[in-house]
């Protein structure tokens, strides 16, 4: 594989390989020296045309723990502001000798376009529009597997703003490739216009779906992308679709909760529910580094 643009680039075997290699990096993170010389002399650039603190930090930490050099490009402080095209920006940055580009953009498909513009660089999708966020789904699978042992056979419930969520699209592909059954729970206006061909079922009542779920993936209401207009009020959204304390009691004792962050406590998740031991949010963040180390290692080591 030349690039990681979508979960479909990996397939079930590829996902498995990433998760297996990520185990090895998770061990590295437990060492006294959390750094290996694997990618010494390589350079990884993060090109974030859309701001994101946690994803950028996670990728940059991953690259540094692999001893790669890291170049951090932020559109806000760059020539893009002066009118330079993404294509020229990418070509300029690659000419500085990059080995991998992690690309995030508010528009779907930009990482794929970038992959057509580069000559040698590997391109990793760090999140594009509503399309995909493959490393987030991989770290979700990794974290759930760590706790539940296997993904195969699990019942995954994805709740919230699925329409505008790149995480949801990657999760549907990753979880179903690994043998989980996936259910979407959202108000009609926050479902994608069509789920034709998606290996999912849809429920319109969260209370009904929660007792059956092994994994509950909560998504943030993407207010900055106008999602607020898709529901009448936040209060109504929380009442029907938020994981309130009352609803959390419906969960199976061994069910786990994931959230890609940042969490908005009191909207999609009640504050005390976010702090339950089943909520894997912090562990997801820790694992994010190991999973992204695995992705960079496999891409630059030529094994993917």
């Amino acid at each position, binding site marked *: 594989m030349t690039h990681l643009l979508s979960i479909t680039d990996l397939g079930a075997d590829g996902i498995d*390989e990433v998760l*297996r*290699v990520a*185990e*090895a*990096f998770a*061990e*590295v993170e437990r*060492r*006294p*020296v959390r*750094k*290996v*010389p*694997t*990618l010494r002399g390589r350079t990884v650039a993060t090109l974030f045309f859309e701001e994101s603190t946690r994803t950028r930090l996670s990728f940059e930490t991953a690259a540094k723990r*692999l001893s790669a050099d890291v170049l951090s490009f932020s559109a806000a402080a760059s020539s893009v502001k002066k009118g330079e095209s993404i294509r020229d920006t990418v070509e300029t940055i690659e000419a500085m000798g990059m080995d991998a580009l992690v690309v995030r953009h508010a528009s779907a498909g930009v990482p794929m376009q970038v992959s057509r513009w580069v000559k040698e660089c590997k391109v990793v999708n760090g999140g594009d529009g509503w399309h995909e966020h493959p490393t987030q789904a991989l770290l979700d699978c990794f974290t759930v597997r760590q706790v539940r042992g296997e993904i195969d056979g699990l019942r995954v419930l994805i709740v919230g703003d699925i329409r505008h969520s790149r995480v949801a699209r990657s999760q549907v592909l990753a979880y179903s490739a690994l043998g989980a059954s996936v259910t979407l729970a959202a108000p009609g206006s926050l479902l994608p216009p069509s789920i034709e061909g998606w290996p999912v079922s849809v429920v319109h009542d969260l209370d009904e779906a929660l007792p059956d779920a092994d994994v509950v993936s909560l998504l943030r209401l993407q207010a900055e992308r106008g999602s607020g207009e898709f529901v009448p009020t936040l209060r109504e959204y929380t009442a029907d679709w938020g994981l309130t304390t009352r609803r959390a009691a419906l969960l199976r004792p061994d069910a786990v909760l994931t959230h890609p962050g940042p969490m908005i406590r009191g909207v999609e998740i009640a504050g005390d529910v976010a702090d339950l031991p089943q909520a894997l949010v912090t562990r997801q963040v820790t694992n994010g580094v190991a999973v992204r180390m695995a992705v960079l*290692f496999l891409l*630059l*080591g*030529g*094994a993917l």
Partner: protein
Amino acid sequence: MAKRERSHTRPGVFVARSRVLSGADVNRALVRMAHEVAERNGGLTDVVLIGLQTGGVPLARRMAAVLAGAEGTEVPVGTLDVAFYRDDIGLRPVLPEAATEVPCDLSGKVVVIVDDVLFTGRTVRAALNALGDFGRARAVQLAVMVDRGHRELPIRPDYVGKNLPTRRDEMVDVSDQGVAIGTIE
């Protein structure tokens, strides 16, 4: 002749051409090496055995068992995968094969690296780098069942089961059944 899958260095199946040590020979060599470790270090205090993934791991465990039987001391045994420390990343696919588990902080310890075959020395070089991240050992020693020559780095074993002259393109396989020379097909 025996065929055995070798997953990591090269794809293909190992086909043995000649058997140079029997299973009993390997066992005898292992017992001798275990005694040499105890003798050279004036006992087993602070000794830690680290088996390199994958071929060195069973040998390290067996060596520890020998030492437990003979000296009555439980020597800590760890495992190390050196994939992340290799110097040939990008030249060919390198995948971590198995777990790294270092049982304790290595500072002040005498670490004995155990591997099945010593060849170019690059794996041991990677292992030395890796071990440095687990603490500053007092000494690091190297035990190998077979030294087949063709070193590319200034590395020399402290304990050797058998010196075995080979051709560069041959493969050496160490297993319960003994040591065989063959090719990958």
